[in-house]
């Protein structure tokens, strides 16, 4: 086989593996959420299908897949069908630039990252900002007042919080001097936990701004006004059923995982070990390659767990509180953080 063909085949295999793993993670994040929220509310959550309910995601997927796909009569069909596709595609797309582990090359292929871009961080921001259309169009095309209200809320909310989100990342970029995600992690990899952006990089304020803004971007509690079931029945996905609903559902959880990945990469040192060089480097080449992935997965899991924990414990914001908090508190704080970060890193 020619080297080009091998390269192309390996790349396709890599993309397929990453996508399948991501989708499995999405399915089991749903289970994790149901279990954890169940425990928070003093009940058990799903426990019937398989041991400890571990096969529940499969059963859920099968159920959603086999349900009748209802097409309401008064919807605007092209956009009604397009909206969940946009939502899911944008949610899955940003994983393409996320590095999971150290840069290990095999036949010219970077094993632990789909594509290493100079503007990786901007790509993630761009993809998330295009993701708004999935929710906005679904509400409009459903021709339902609850959906429309939900999607109007979401467009306003996502545009507002995108500002705080983007500004909170500037400090990190100033420190690394690059928008490439691998460079950003490399800066934090020197002294373990002490050189992570959240501690050694003095970006702890930026981290909390990012986390809050990202919760709002992904429409999760306490900012889930978009689907607030007590006022809007289901928000933007009121009219959706079967696979189309499942696509919105998967998009939401894939976005959670992406936010976890980005927070890990930008503030918690990515795949680098929290102990820095205190631990001796393992001799075995396989362990050497897999240990960074272990740290990465642990950190992402922490963020996903935090998402669920927050959802289980906090009440929903009111809409005017949400907007006021975003514009009057988070954005000025993010700007102040940029100034402080610039003053810290200017002398270098």
């Amino acid at each position, binding site marked *: 086989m020619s080297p080009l063909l091998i390269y192309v085949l390996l790349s396709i295999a890599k993309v397929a593996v990453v996508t399948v793993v991501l989708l499995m993670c999405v399915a089991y994040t749903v289970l994790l959420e149901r279990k954890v929220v169940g425990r928070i509310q003093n009940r058990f959550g799903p426990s019937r299908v398989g041991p400890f309910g571990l096969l529940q995601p499969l059963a859920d997927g099968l159920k959603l897949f086999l349900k009748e796909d209802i097409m309401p009569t008064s919807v605007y069909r092209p956009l009604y069908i397009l909206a969940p596709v946009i939502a899911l595609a944008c949610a899955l797309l940003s994983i393409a630039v996320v590095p999971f582990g150290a840069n290990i090359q095999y036949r010219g292929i970077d094993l632990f990252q789909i594509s290493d871009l*100079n503007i990786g961080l901007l790509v993630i921001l761009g993809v998330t900002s295009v993701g708004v259309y999935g929710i906005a169009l679904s509400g*409009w095309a459903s021709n339902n007042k609850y959906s429309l209200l939900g999607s109007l809320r979401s467009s306003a909310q996502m545009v507002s919080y995108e500002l705080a989100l983007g500004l909170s990342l500037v400090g990190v970029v100033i420190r690394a001097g690059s928008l490439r995600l691998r460079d950003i992690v490399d800066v934090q990899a020197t002294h373990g936990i002490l050189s992570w952006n959240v501690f050694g990089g003095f970006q702890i304020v930026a981290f909390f701004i990012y986390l809050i803004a990202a919760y709002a971007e992904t429409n999760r509690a306490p900012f889930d006004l978009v689907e607030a079931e007590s006022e809007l029945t289901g928000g933007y996905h009121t009219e959706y059923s079967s696979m189309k609903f499942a696509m919105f559902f998967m998009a939401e959880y894939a976005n959670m995982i992406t936010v976890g990945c980005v927070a890990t990469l930008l503030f918690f040192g990515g795949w680098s070990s929290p102990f820095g060089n205190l631990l001796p480097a393992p001799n075995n080449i396989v362990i050497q390659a897999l240990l960074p992935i272990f740290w990465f997965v642990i950190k992402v899991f922490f963020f996903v767990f935090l998402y669920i924990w927050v959802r289980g414990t906090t009440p929903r914001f009111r809409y005017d509180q949400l907007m006021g908090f975003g514009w009057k508190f988070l954005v000025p704080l993010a700007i102040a953080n940029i100034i402080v970060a610039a003053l810290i890193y200017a002398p270098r």
Partner: protein
Amino acid sequence: MAFDMYLVIFLIFGALCIAGALNLLLQRHPINSALSLIVVMTSLAVLYLLLGAEFLAAAQVIVYSGAIMVLFTFVIMLLNAGEEERTRGSRAAYLVGFPGVAALLGLLTYIFLSVRMPLGNAQLGGGTLVTTSDLSRVLFRDLLLPFEVTSILILVAILGAVALARKEES
């Protein structure tokens, strides 16, 4: 590669641009027009990448597709704009406008194609990539004053938008 990938990508996304623009013209519902414009803008971002402008490609997606067009769709949804009725526009537009546009297009195309050789070719690689730091070096050193002036412009625009959209107290 014998197979000219660069040209193929250019043709695909150029065709998408033109198709999107024509769709904007032909669709009667504003939301369809807005979506076609998003397609045009995102394809343009790919063309910017082909021209080695990676930061601009990202900015195009974030600013145009992700912010400006979201505002447009938001306003369309908020005002619940229906299909437009095609009334007759001004006669000056039909008498002068369209022949003028056609003449402009013909003239530009003729000139561009006739100086095709001296203009040269676009290619990737070989130092044609403009990195973000190249861009910021020019922006924050040579063009700092215009940059600051645009920030004042944005401030004025924010104030104007707030003043316009505010409800009258009665």
